[in-house]
């Protein structure tokens, strides 16, 4: 991975890749002449999950659409595996999951997946495989209008598992999903990413930290940071502690709901703090980080 417009990426992050990577070269893109992305450059070759973060309107979806070849850059170029994205050979190397469900009206779930399978050159048996994988077999005879938002998302996600590709562009794949299903989807994506490049956009900072190895932050159409997740540290670390019974040992702590708060210089101080409290007889029910350090990337 390397970047042209994000100078805060150390050279040590440039790994040996498998040759099928994304090369985004000084890309300016947008809609109907209105520019949303401004001279974005980065190169990704290492199979891993890259979480694309950014506030609403920052340009995440526009970036995905440009990388997928849907939007043609006004300036610059996108290459997949060393070839321009407008070549079908490049196109065949990636999957793109849109932020909307993309399920055709008038087709049942099974028919829709069979349709996607034909488009993507997958086999009919792959439809059965993904229906089992995503646990949607009981929905096979239903129409999209009969599905809940979560079920629709699940069916939508199923299509990216129909056929293996080298690169996956997943635009908010867990939006509108309940926590259990979202976790299952993240686990599937984690398995998927072992030998693949996965770009995964999300608003959820905790999810980003859970699933991503790298973070790519977009602000106002530009990459403001591209780094390993572990290198992203917040300006402060707030520990939240829930206890079974109030204790005088917590008198100096601030409150937020059921949590007693203590600001630390970093997560490495947490074990010592917890040991000290337990030594004073505090029965700890839960301890968690109250603020996600990735929040700082948004400000």
């Amino acid at each position: 991975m390397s970047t042209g417009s994000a100078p805060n990426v150390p050279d040590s992050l440039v790994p040996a890749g498998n040759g099928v990577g994304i090369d985004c070269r000084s890309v300016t893109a947008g809609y109907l002449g209105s520019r949303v992305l401004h001279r974005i450059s980065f190169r990704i070759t290492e199979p891993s999950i890259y979480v694309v973060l950014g506030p609403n309107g920052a340009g995440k979806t526009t970036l995905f659409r440009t990388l997928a070849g849907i939007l043609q850059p006004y300036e610059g170029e996108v290459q997949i595996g060393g070839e321009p994205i407008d070549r079908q050979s490049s196109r065949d190397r990636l999957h793109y999951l849109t932020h909307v469900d993309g399920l055709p009206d008038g087709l049942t779930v099974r028919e829709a997946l069979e349709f996607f399978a034909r488009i993507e050159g997958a086999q009919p048996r792959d439809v059965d495989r993904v229906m089992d994988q995503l646990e949607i077999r009981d929905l096979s005879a239903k129409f999209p209008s009969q599905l809940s938002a979560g079920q629709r998302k699940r069916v939508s996600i199923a299509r990216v598992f129909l056929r293996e590709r080298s690169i996956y562009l997943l635009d908010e794949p867990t939006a509108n999903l309940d926590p259990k299903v979202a976790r299952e989807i993240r686990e599937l994506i984690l398995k998927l990413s072992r030998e693949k490049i996965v770009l995964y956009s999300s608003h959820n900072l905790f999810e980003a930290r859970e699933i991503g190895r790298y973070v790519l932050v977009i602000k106002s159409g530009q990459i403001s940071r591209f780094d390993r997740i572990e290198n992203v540290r917040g300006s402060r670390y707030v520990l939240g502690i829930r206890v079974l019974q109030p204790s005088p040992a917590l008198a100096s702590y601030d409150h937020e709901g059921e949590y007693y708060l203590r600001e630390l210089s970093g997560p490495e101080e947490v074990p010592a703090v917890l040991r000290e409290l337990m030594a004073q007889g505090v029965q700890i029910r839960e301890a968690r980080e109250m603020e996600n350090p990735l929040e700082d990337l948004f400000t």
Partner: protein
Amino acid sequence: MSAPATGNVSRSLLSLTIRRASVTGRFFLVYGTAISVLLGVLLAHVSGTSFATSFPLFLPVFGVVGSMGGLLVFTSDRTKGVLEYLLAYGYSPRRLFANVLLTTLVLASIVVGIGVSVSLGVYFAEGHTVTSTLAIGVGIYAVPMALACAAFASTVGVYWTTLSSPRLGINSPVGLIPFIGILPALVTLFAIVAAGLSGPISDRTLLLILGSGMGLVAIFVIVLLVSMGRLLRRERLLSPA
């Protein structure tokens, strides 16, 4: 972007779109077919002259109404991100539009085919014979004009849908397109009436007016189809959500 898939996949996309349009636009399809059959049967039963002079005039209207499923599917696919998915897999806007256009023509052909064949069956069963008015009316005017109007409605509908904000209801493109789609037929009919004001019109003049009407529609559709790359940018096909 180059073609994404084999001819089989393209045919499969077309056949699937036709099937979806038949399901999504079933009300329009059934309504257009049923009314054309009902009117044709009634007119054939009343008199051969009434059938030969009136039935061909109405057929384009039913063709346009019955083929609305194509535009419904296009509008829904745009809103729900299906077009975006297909663009990502290498389908060009022109190809997607051609898919809608062909679907519309197939649906219009179903309406016109059933309407004409059933009505003519009743017409002949009633003992009427083929007249030049009937031959010109059905063969030269009604059937080609129904298909031309359906193509016109589909083309205008696609442009209108993609160039405007999504709307629902009677004021949406889907709600208004049936009225716009029959314009070529109405304009042609007005031209025939205007030509007839100064006296009886010859078959040659009639054919000239009909041919011009359909020719203009064909040119209009082809020009819009060819200009699609310039006029309809890819981003117009993306879901506004």
